[in-house]
């Protein structure tokens, strides 16, 4: 059976009988199409249904947390604890039962996630009953551990997503803010664990949530300095280099998601660094602090290793390779640029990297006639040009002229691109 989207199958199911009636396809061709796309098999409730169940679980979990926060005056503490423990066990048991019987798999996932969210509420309740206080992120560490165990043992991807978020984006950020070096090491260890799990689950969502959490945790101990921009840039480069080592289709899908996430991350943080004031604030003195080096160098080394491995391989998409090369090579250039007076070198590197990335996306759009990359590239170039002219405080006529030229350029580019798409469609019909 060929792998196609649920929407495609539903459309085909709807259209095929009409095509047969109108004798556009023969009975044999219709049967062959139905077989090829597995139209006779029932749909297992798509990702939308799962999203609804998960949203429901999050809302109910949020409600339970609010009830705990309300601190019920009418109930004794023992009764409160009993109620909320029973709620946790009931949600877990119902989810397990549904999944164990092989029916309502997605609802089962939603209930198991709810069980773990209620577990989180229970941590708050126990802390409330015993007046336990400490660092704000401590409770999230306990919650992440419980969610991780539940996600792995019960094979529940939604629970793993929540565990990754709580572990890196919440606990990791708080811990790294308090203990820079230990926090960065812990963030790397947690990221390695969740990335391995994202590979096991073949989950792009888990990969991206983990990467975002790692970026936030590495950003946090440096957040008082503009140098905090560097770890996300290194992370972006490492993610963008993933397609260079992807071998199977499954790896390519994961790496593709990583590449998009990495490129967007790099674009955003390089854009901030493309402003002279930001680069001046981010200037690195005496080679950089230990925390900065620890947050940047391992990621840069990983990115470099992926690039070297990808350079030797055949069959790698040339634009993906070029993009990865640009991002990885930019890293030492940015670091060096920030180490010289006023960080001017980094401004030049950031602007060049953004311009090349934008042009690369435009070229990809034109060569493959895809709107996505074309418009991404145009947007990057337009933002870059407008940003540079915002920095000009004099010569207002030049600023005005640049905006006009930019707007006209985008309009002309849009017309030319759409015309080209239209021409190709016409050729296809002939």
């Amino acid at each position, binding site marked *: 059976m060929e792998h196609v989207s649920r929407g495609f199958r539903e459309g085909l199911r709807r259209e095929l009988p009409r095509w047969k009636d109108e004798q556009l396809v023969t009975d044999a061709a219709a049967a062959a199409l139905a077989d090829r796309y597995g139209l006779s098999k029932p749909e297992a409730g798509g990702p939308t249904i799962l999203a609804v169940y998960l949203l429901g679980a999050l809302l109910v979990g949020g409600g339970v947390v609010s009830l*705990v926060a*309300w*601190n019920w*005056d009418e109930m004794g503490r023992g009764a409160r604890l009993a109620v909320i423990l029973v709620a946790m066990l009931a949600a877990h048991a119902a989810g397990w039962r549904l999944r164990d019987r092989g029916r309502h798999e997605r609802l089962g996932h939603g209930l198991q996630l709810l069980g773990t969210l209620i577990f989180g509420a229970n941590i708050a309740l126990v802390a409330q009953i015993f007046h*336990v206080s400490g660092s704000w992120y401590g409770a999230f560490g306990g919650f992440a551990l419980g969610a991780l165990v*539940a996600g792995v043992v019960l094979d529940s991807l939604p629970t793993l997503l929540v565990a990754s978020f709580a572990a890196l984006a919440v606990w990791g950020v708080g811990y790294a803010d*308090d203990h820079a070096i230990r926090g960065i090491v812990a963030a790397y260890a947690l990221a390695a664990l969740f990335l391995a799990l994202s590979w096991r689950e073949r989950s792009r969502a888990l990969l991206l949530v983990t990467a975002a959490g790692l970026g936030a945790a590495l950003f946090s101990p440096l957040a008082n300095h503009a140098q905090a921009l560097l770890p996300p840039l290194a992370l972006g480069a490492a993610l963008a280099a993933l397609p260079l080592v992807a071998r199977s289709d499954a790896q390519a899908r994961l790496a593709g998601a990583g590449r998009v996430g990495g490129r967007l991350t790099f674009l955003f943080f390089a854009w901030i660094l493309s402003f002279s004031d930001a680069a001046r604030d981010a200037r690195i003195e005496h080679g950089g602090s230990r925390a900065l080096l620890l947050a940047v160098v391992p990621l840069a080394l990983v990115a470099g290793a992926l690039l070297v491995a990808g350079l030797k391989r055949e069959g790698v998409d040339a634009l993906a390779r070029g993009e990865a090369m640009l991002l990885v090579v930019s890293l030492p250039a940015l670091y060096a640029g920030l180490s010289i007076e006023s960080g001017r070198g980094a401004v030049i590197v950031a602007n060049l990297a953004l311009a090349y990335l934008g042009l690369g996306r435009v070229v990809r759009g034109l060569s493959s006639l895809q709107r996505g990359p074309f418009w991404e590239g145009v947007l990057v170039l337009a933002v870059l040009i407008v940003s540079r002219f915002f920095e000009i405080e004099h010569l207002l006529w030049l600023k005005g002229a640049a905006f006009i030229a930019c707007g006209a350029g985008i309009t002309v580019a849009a017309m030319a691109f759409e015309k080209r798409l239209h021409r190709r469609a016409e050729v296809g019909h002939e």
Partner: protein
Amino acid sequence: MSRRLRFAAVIAVQLAILAAVPARQVLARTRGREITLRTAPVDPFSPFGGYYLTLAYEVERPVAGQVAPGLRSGELVYLVVERREPAWSLVSISRERPARRPDRAILRARWRGGPSESVALEPRPWERAPIESAGRFYLPEVKAKRLEQAMADEWKRVNEIPWQEREAVQRTRMLVDLRVDDDGNVALVRLRYGGLAFEE
């Protein structure tokens, strides 16, 4: 591992984490003795995680000569307090756990201050040693409102007192009873404010 066993394992781990959260408080409650500390509310009420009062104890702020030299910020320390009326008072802050004495108690805390030796001679106003896990007193909504009202009334009353006498009045207005065990673990038992007492 069978699905049933896996389900049981998850429940066991989550329950174990829940049991670990108040472990120190349970130890202090079961094997500790009761002491009283003077405190002041520093960040009155927050809806996050329920109504609670953030507490800053007088014994957390040392004066010259009470701090062991060379402490690093974040380091585990022990506060030694001794019986006084109406509240126990600070004797010293040290790295090592002191020997037990019947008229004294020890409390686990974290040093938040500068690393310099000068701390021992002249602690700066921002340097303190917050007692571990004793910084919040949770209250149900109704009791929280009652305490808030009492504090507002007290504030009005204190403002009418000549300023020279104010400090003495304010120093005795809020007390916390805690149970403390020999390892320095604490559990909050009761918050007292004027004539009001809030049991945990």
